[in-house]
C-alpha cells in the first residue's frame, strides 16, 4: 500500500444522544480520489468537519497528512484545503480580491500572489469577472471562485463537500474537469457526494455511508460487482405476447404487472445479436428493448436496503 493521506479509525461522533458517526474506518491513499457517498443526513458533512479540524471527534483517531487532527491541528490546517457545501466567498469583495485575501493570509509575497491569482482566475475562467463583486456571480461561478480560493495555498489534500450540489449540468461537468486536473497534479481528493454518478466517474475508491456507518467500501467496479449483473429488459403490450416470449426465452424472469421480461446476459454485442436473432425467428416484437448495466444506484439499493438519494429526496 502507498502512503496514506488520510487515515481514520474508529471515528465516532454524537450530538447529544443522536449518534451521527458510529465507528468509521477509512484510508485514503496519497494522490487518489476518495468519495464518501451517502444520502442527506448520513453524516458526510460531519465526517468532513472532523477531518478538517472544524469539529472534535468523540472517539477514534484521525490522521490527515500524517498529523493527528486532535493534537496537531495547526499542521493539519496548513496541509489541507476545504471547499464546503456553501460557497464560502466574500460577497462584498471582487473575485480577484477574494483570491488576493487568501494569498495575503497564506503570506505569499506580492509577486508570487499576483502570479497565483492571475493564474487561478484564468484557469477557472473567471478572468472576465475578476473585477466584479462576488455577489453578482452565478451559483456556478461562486463555486468555481470558492474552489479557486481553496487552491491558493497549493494544498496537497483537498476536501470537497458536495461540490456540485445545486449546480446545473454544465457547471457540474466543469467542476469534474477541474477535479480531474487536480488529481493529475498529484493532489489527494476527499469528495462527498449524494450523486452516485459523480462518485462513479471521479473516485478511485468509494465508501458508502448510511446512518453513520460505512456499509461498503471499494473501487466503483468492486461495488458494482456486489449487485446482480447486466440484463436486457423487454417490454410488451399484452400478456399474450409476454407469454409467447417467456416460452422462448427460458432463462428470463417475467414481471406480469409491468409486462416486462428480464433476460440476463453480459450486455456484449454477441449475446445481444443472438437474442435479437431469437426474437426475430419467433416473430416476437417487444414494444421496448433496453440494456441495463448496474449503476451505483443499484449498488446503493442493494447495500442499504433502501433507495438512493434521488428517491429519498422525492
Amino acid at each position, binding site marked *: 500500500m502507498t502512503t496514506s493521506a488520510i487515515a481514520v479509525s474508529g471515528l465516532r461522533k454524537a450530538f447529544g444522544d443522536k449518534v451521527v458517526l458510529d465507528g468509521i474506518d477509512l484510508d485514503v491513499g496519497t494522490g487518489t480520489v476518495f468519495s464518501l457517498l451517502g444520502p442527506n443526513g448520513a453524516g458526510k458533512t460531519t465526517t468532513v468537519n472532523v477531518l478538517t479540524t472544524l469539529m472534535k471527534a468523540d472517539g477514534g483517531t484521525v490522521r490527515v497528512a500524517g498529523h493527528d487532527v486532535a493534537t496537531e491541528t495547526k499542521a493539519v490546517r496548513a496541509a489541507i484545503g*476545504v471547499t464546503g457545501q456553501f460557497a*464560502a466567498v*466574500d460577497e462584498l469583495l471582487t473575485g480577484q480580491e477574494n483570491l488576493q*485575501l487568501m494569498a495575503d493570509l497564506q503570506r505569499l509575497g506580492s509577486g508570487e500572489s499576483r502570479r497565483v491569482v492571475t493564474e487561478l482566475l484564468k484557469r477557472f475562467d473567471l478572468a472576465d469577472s475578476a473585477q466584479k463583486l462576488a455577489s453578482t456571480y452565478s451559483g456556478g461561478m461562486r463555486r468555481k471562485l470558492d474552489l479557486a480560493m481553496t487552491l491558493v495555498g497549493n494544498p496537497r489534500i483537498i476536501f470537497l463537500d458536495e461540490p456540485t450540489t445545486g449546480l446545473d449540468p454544465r457547471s457540474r461537468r466543469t467542476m469534474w474537469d477541474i477535479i480531474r486536473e487536480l488529481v493529475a497534479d498529484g493532489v489527494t481528493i476527499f469528495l462527498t457526494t449524494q450523486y452516485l454518478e459523480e462518485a462513479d466517474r471521479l473516485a478511485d475508491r468509494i465508501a458508502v455511508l448510511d446512518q453513520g456507518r460505512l456499509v461498503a467500501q471499494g473501487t466503483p467496479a468492486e461495488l458494482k460487482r456486489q449487485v446482480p449483473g447486466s440484463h436486457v429488459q423487454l417490454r410488451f403490450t399484452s400478456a399474450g405476447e409476454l407469454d409467447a416470449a417467456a416460452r422462448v426465452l427460458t432463462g428470463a424472469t417475467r414481471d406480469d404487472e409491468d409486462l416486462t421480461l428480464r433476460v440476463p446476459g453480459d450486455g456484449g454485442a454477441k449475446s445481444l445479436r443472438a437474442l435479437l436473432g431469437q426474437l426475430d425467428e419467433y416473430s416476437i416484437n417487444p414494444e421496448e428493448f433496453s440494456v441495463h448495466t448496474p449503476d451505483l444506484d443499484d449498488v446503493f439499493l442493494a447495500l442499504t436496503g433502501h433507495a438512493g438519494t434521488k428517491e429519498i429526496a422525492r
Partner: protein
Amino acid sequence: MSADSMIMLRRNFKHTVRSPTAVFNAVIFPVVLLLMFVYVIGGAFNVGASYIDYATPGMIVLAICYGLSATALAVNSDMTKGIINRFKVMDISRSAVLSAHVATSMLTSFIAIAAIIAVAFGLGFRPDASFPDWLGVIAVIVLAGFAASWITVALGLFAKTPDSAGMAIVPLILLPFLSSAIVPVDKMGAGVRQFAEYQPFTPIIETLRGLLTGAPSAGDAIAAVAWCAGIALVGYLWSLSTFRKRA
C-alpha cells in the same frame, strides 16, 4: 495587532466603503441628528448653557452607537455566510476576525465623531477644554468605543440571522436617548430619571461634558471607566465563547 488582523481589517474597510448605507448610518445620521436637535428642537430646552455646548458630548456618544449596527451585521454575515469556516480551517489566528471587526467599528466611529465635532464647531461649539482635557476626551472616546464594539461583536455572533443581529443592537442605539445626552437627567420624569442616572451612558457623557467644559468630575470619570471596562470584558468573553461554540 497581528498580521492576520491587519489583513482582516483591510477586508472590513473594503466592505465598509462598499456599503453606503453603513457609512450613512455611521457618519451622516449623527450629524443630521445634531443639526436637528440644535436648530429644530434644542431651542425648546433650557439646559443652563448654550445648547450646542451641551449637546455635542451626547452626540459624540450617539455617533459611536450608530456605527454599531453595521458592525453587528458584518459580524453576523461572516458567521452565517460560511466564510468563517474558510478562515477557521486556515492556519490563521482565531481572534483575528473578531479583533478586526472591533478595530473597524472603532475606526468608523472615530470618523463619525470627527465629523460631529467639526460640524459642532461650525455651529458655534466652544469648548473650554485644555490640552490634557482633550487627551482625556480622546481616552474616554476610545474606551467607550472599545467597550461598545466588543459587546456588539458578541451580539452579532450570538444572533442567528442578520435581521436579529440588527434588532439586538437597537437597545444600544436607544440607550443614549435615555441618558443625559440630549436633556439633563433632572428634567426627566420619575422612573426614567432614575434609569437615566444609573445607566452606563450617563457617566460616560457627563465625563466628556466635564472635560469639554474644562470642569471634569472624578466621580463620573471613575464610573465611566468602570462601566467601559466591565462592558468590554463581558463583550470579549461572550464573543470568544460564542465564537468557539458556533462552528
